[in-house]
């Protein structure tokens, strides 16, 4: 692909605006709460769009198009089964504790509910995971732009890291959230024509079905047995592995997304954040998965080869090159650039919060002034960006090691949802139960992965292995936490008010109009989601 001056002009406009937003927000960053949680004063529609956008990184956008090309409509399970139910759950059932406890982060909630060591375990794992994810994101971005546009790897890494550093340093979480909302609209405007044009060229829905392998157009009727669908998983692995463990583990406990809801202006807005996010989320498959399928239907399969290997990730870039003239190409590339950069910004702002509140404030220098922690947050932002750059270069040197690490980290979180479920809904759950359950759940995931790599357990597909591993890790944590809890002494009930379901006053919205209540929104989302599943069953 070749970019012309108009494309560069559009990319430059985007960068100028992003930096401008940072400078404009600088003067409202007066306290550490402003910097880390946007002073808790953002309206629900903005936190909602940021909530979904934080997860709509370029790796997801390209990866979902890739899965569309590889597995077809089954990929939609990542949305309608693997996201929506968990998003409703975190909004309706968990937000009253997260937001209501006034915890500033997910690890801080763990300290309030359990103890210091459980928080430490989660804070440190999260901090390490987040900067590595940020580095891998940077590395993937540089590789992609090198491959499709011929940009220099060093220049891409350094320039984008500098832009992200400037705007997160100046505007903190608010800057990050604003850019995520901006990115959401850029992705929609940058990719929507692609989706329409590719499906039209493939001959509409039926024309596309005729050109794709059997089982590509269905989501449920082919899940009876692992051998009857291209993903190699059965309905149990799909529902329990993806729909329950992986999905709830990510949407309900990952601070990167939860932080967006914590920045909301009140409890109603916090609860609505994931519910509002669920509405666009349901329709994103039409933007990313279906074009991937169309690409597989219309393009010669040899065009997906990169360095002699089949690379489904090329689906989206191939379509960009096929349909977009100079000008539109600039918008499409800006959309990808924006989602890489805001993905990195999201990681950096989540990292600096957990580092400052949960590690620095708790273990290194407690009892300092708020100014000191605001300063530390800014230092951590610079540090986070520098570590990301270092991680990107390590990834460039040893690509395989990073893949390996990333896989391991994706399972570390799987058992965490068991800890939260028991902690929030069973008041007896003890700190020791939670800590050891969580630790052994994570170790169980690691052991299972080790066994798969060495061929002691084998699966029909990598995906099937991932789903089973998540179920295994979650169950280990769940059972172990219960057993240890039964042998240890529970905390006094008076200490658990606002932290456990049965000891917390539920927010009521009787005074609000029906349409303003979170529950109404949730019901609308469920109806649409079930209808979509039924349509593509």
């Amino acid at each position, binding site marked *: 692909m070749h970019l012309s001056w*108009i494309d560069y*002009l*559009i990319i430059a*406009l*985007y960068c100028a*605006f992003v930096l*401008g*937003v940072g400078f*404009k*927000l600088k*003067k*409202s960053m007066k306290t550490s709460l402003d910097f880390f949680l946007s002073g808790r*004063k*953002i*309206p629900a529609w*903005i936190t909602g769009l940021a909530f979904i956008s934080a997860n709509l990184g370029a790796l997801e956008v390209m990866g979902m198009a890739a899965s569309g090309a590889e597995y077809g409509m089954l990929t939609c399970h990542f949305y309608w089964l693997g996201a929506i139910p968990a998003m409703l759950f975190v909004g309706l059932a968990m937000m009253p504790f997260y937001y209501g406890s006034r915890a500033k982060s997910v690890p801080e909630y763990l300290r309030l509910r359990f103890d210091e060591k459980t928080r430490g375990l989660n804070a440190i794992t999260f901090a390490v995971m987040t900067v590595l994810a940020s580095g891998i994101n940077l590395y993937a971005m540089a590789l992609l732009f090198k491959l499709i546009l011929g940009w220099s790897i060093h220049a891409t890494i350094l320039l984008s890291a500098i832009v992200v550093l400037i705007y997160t340093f100046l505007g903190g979480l*608010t800057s990050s959230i*604003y850019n995520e*909302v*901006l990115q959401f*609209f850029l992705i929609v*405007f940058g990719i929507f*024509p692609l989706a329409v*044009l590719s499906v039209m*060229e493939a001959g509409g829905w039926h024309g596309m079905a005729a050109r794709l392998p059997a089982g590509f157009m269905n989501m449920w009727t082919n899940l009876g047995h692992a051998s009857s669908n291209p993903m190699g998983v059965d309905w149990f692995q799909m529902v329990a592995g993806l729909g329950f463990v992986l999905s709830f583990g990510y949407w309900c406990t990952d601070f990167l997304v939860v932080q967006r809801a914590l920045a909301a202006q009140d409890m109603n807005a916090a609860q609505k954040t994931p519910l509002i996010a669920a509405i666009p989320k349901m329709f994103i498959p039409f933007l990313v998965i279906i074009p991937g399928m169309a690409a597989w239907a219309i393009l010669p399969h040899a065009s997906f080869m990169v360095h002699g290997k089949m690379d489904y990730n090329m689906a989206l870039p191939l379509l960009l090159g096929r*349909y*977009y*003239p*100079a*000008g*539109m190409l*600039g*918008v499409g590339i*800006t959309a990808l650039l924006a989602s890489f950069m805001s993905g990195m910004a999201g990681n950096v702002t989540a990292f600096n919060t957990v580092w400052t509140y949960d590690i620095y404030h708790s273990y290194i220098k407690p009892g300092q002034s708020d100014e000191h922690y605001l300063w530390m947050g800014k230092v951590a932002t610079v540090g986070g960006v520098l570590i990301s750059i270092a991680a990107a270069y390590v990834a460039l040197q040893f690509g395989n090691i990073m893949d390996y690490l990333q896989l391991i980290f994706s399972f570390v979180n799987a058992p965490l949802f068991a800890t939260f479920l028991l902690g929030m809904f069973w008041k007896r759950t003890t700190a020791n139960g939670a800590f050891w359950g969580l630790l052994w759940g994570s170790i169980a995931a690691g052991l299972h992965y080790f066994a798969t790599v060495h061929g002691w357990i084998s699966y029909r597909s990598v995906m099937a292995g991932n789903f089973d591993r998540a179920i295994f890790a979650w169950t280990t944590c769940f059972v172990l936490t219960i057993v240890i809890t039964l042998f240890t002494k529970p905390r006094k009930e008076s200490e658990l008010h606002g932290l456990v379901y049965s000891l917390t006053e539920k927010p009521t919205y009787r005074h609000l109009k029906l349409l303003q209540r979170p529950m109404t929104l949730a019901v609308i989302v469920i109806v649409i989601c079930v209808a979509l599943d039924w349509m593509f069953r």
Partner: protein
Amino acid sequence: MDLDIRWPIGLLFSAMGAALAIYGAFFTSSQKIWRFWFDLDLWWGVAMLIFGLAMIWGASRASRHG
């Protein structure tokens, strides 16, 4: 909030949309137009411009009311 997010979104999309539409109207070679039987740059640029102006309109109305 100190900065209404609709301002940056509105201004950026207006600027991008206008640039794209002008480029589409005056500069696009016919090279890729055949695929769509219309000028994608021009019309998608206009769509982005309308979205941008709507955001600006919303932001300025909100700032006048309070």
